[in-house]
């Protein structure tokens, strides 16, 4: 995907720049942008390290584990066809909590494990391997609706580009995230019900 997206950006920039007579500006932008990326990363090191440090405390103190357990009723509601003793529950909960806390990198491995478990359940119930089960669709739609509560990286970018109040967007972002997740929740519930009646 990025091969075309990134390649396309550069090719279009060079060709379009040549046509509009801005070849020099394009060349300068290439050099200054790469430098800027490094400066940005250095500025971000602090915020990101602070965040992962605090989240390590949450993990070590058992707070994240407690949150994962609290997810049970939520999972019952969204995944009625996943048995309570399935390992999928724990993986889904861990993935969701990691996403909520903004630890995207930690979320993906658990998400993939959850998918594997859901696939086992799917096959055990006589479903086809290449067709997504209801639980898989629900899991991915909720995941894609974005669950992150505090957008740390956005706050860091805002502060780097001179925002007067970088954290101004925290609560509005929560409202937005909650709303998109709510829409996703209604969607999967409606689709799930349709499936049952069929």
């Amino acid at each position, binding site marked *: 995907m990025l091969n075309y997206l990134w390649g396309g950006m550069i090719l279009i920039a060079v060709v379009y720049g040549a046509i509009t007579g801005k070849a020099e500006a394009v060349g300068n932008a290439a050099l200054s942008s790469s430098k800027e990326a490094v400066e940005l990363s250095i500025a971000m090191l602090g915020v990101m390290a602070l965040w992962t440090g605090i989240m390590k*405390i949450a993990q070590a103190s058992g707070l994240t584990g407690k949150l994962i357990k609290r997810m049970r009723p939520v999972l019952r509601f969204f995944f009625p066809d996943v048995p309570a003793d399935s390992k999928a529950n724990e993986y889904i909960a861990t993935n969701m909590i990691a996403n909520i806390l903004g630890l995207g990198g930690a979320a993906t491995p658990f998400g993939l494990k959850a998918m594997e478990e859901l696939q086992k359940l799917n096959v055990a119930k006589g479903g086809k391997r290449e067709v997504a089960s209801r639980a898989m669709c629900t899991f991915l739609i909720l995941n894609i609706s974005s669950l992150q509560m505090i957008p740390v990286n956005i706050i860091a970018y805002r502060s780097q580009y001179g925002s007067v109040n970088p954290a101004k967007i925290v609560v509005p972002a929560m409202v937005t995230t909650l709303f998109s997740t709510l829409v996703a929740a209604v969607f999967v519930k409606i689709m799930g019900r349709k499936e049952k009646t069929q």
Partner: protein
Amino acid sequence: MSVLVYLSDFCIPLLLFYMIVYGLMTKTDIYKEFTEGAKDGFSVTLGILPTLIGLMTGVGMLRASGFLETLSEFLAPVAKMLFFPAELVPLVVVKLFSASAATGLLLDIFKEYGPDSYLGTVTSLICASTETIFYTMSVYFMAVGVKKTRYTLAGALTATAAGVAVSTFLGGML
């Protein structure tokens, strides 16, 4: 709307307070855990640096060539009908495929218009509340060999559209 900003000011300090209190109450070795965790932050940040260099260069060149402005002008009539700022259309489209490429565009918006401007605020909210649909779907479904994804795409697009709509609305009020 200033209430939302007011509450935002408290979020991070409160969160830090809560984590420390919880850590102390459970007798966790908080300082050791913190420094260890902070080390991970380095590898995360430095890990994305090559991507950031590549994509900020791409977007920077596009902006300098004047292509992004032309594209926005071209998209303006359609965007206007949807009450959506044309300058942000490329970002929303790119975000469906790649989070890092969208970050490149987000930073470009911050540079051009400032993070506290209307466009800057709306972009912040959009990037904070949406995920990369096609990337996530392909990674998760490919891992288990699913080819028919049924209503997943429709649901993901609906949720994303809702997120973008609320971002635009709230961004206008802040």
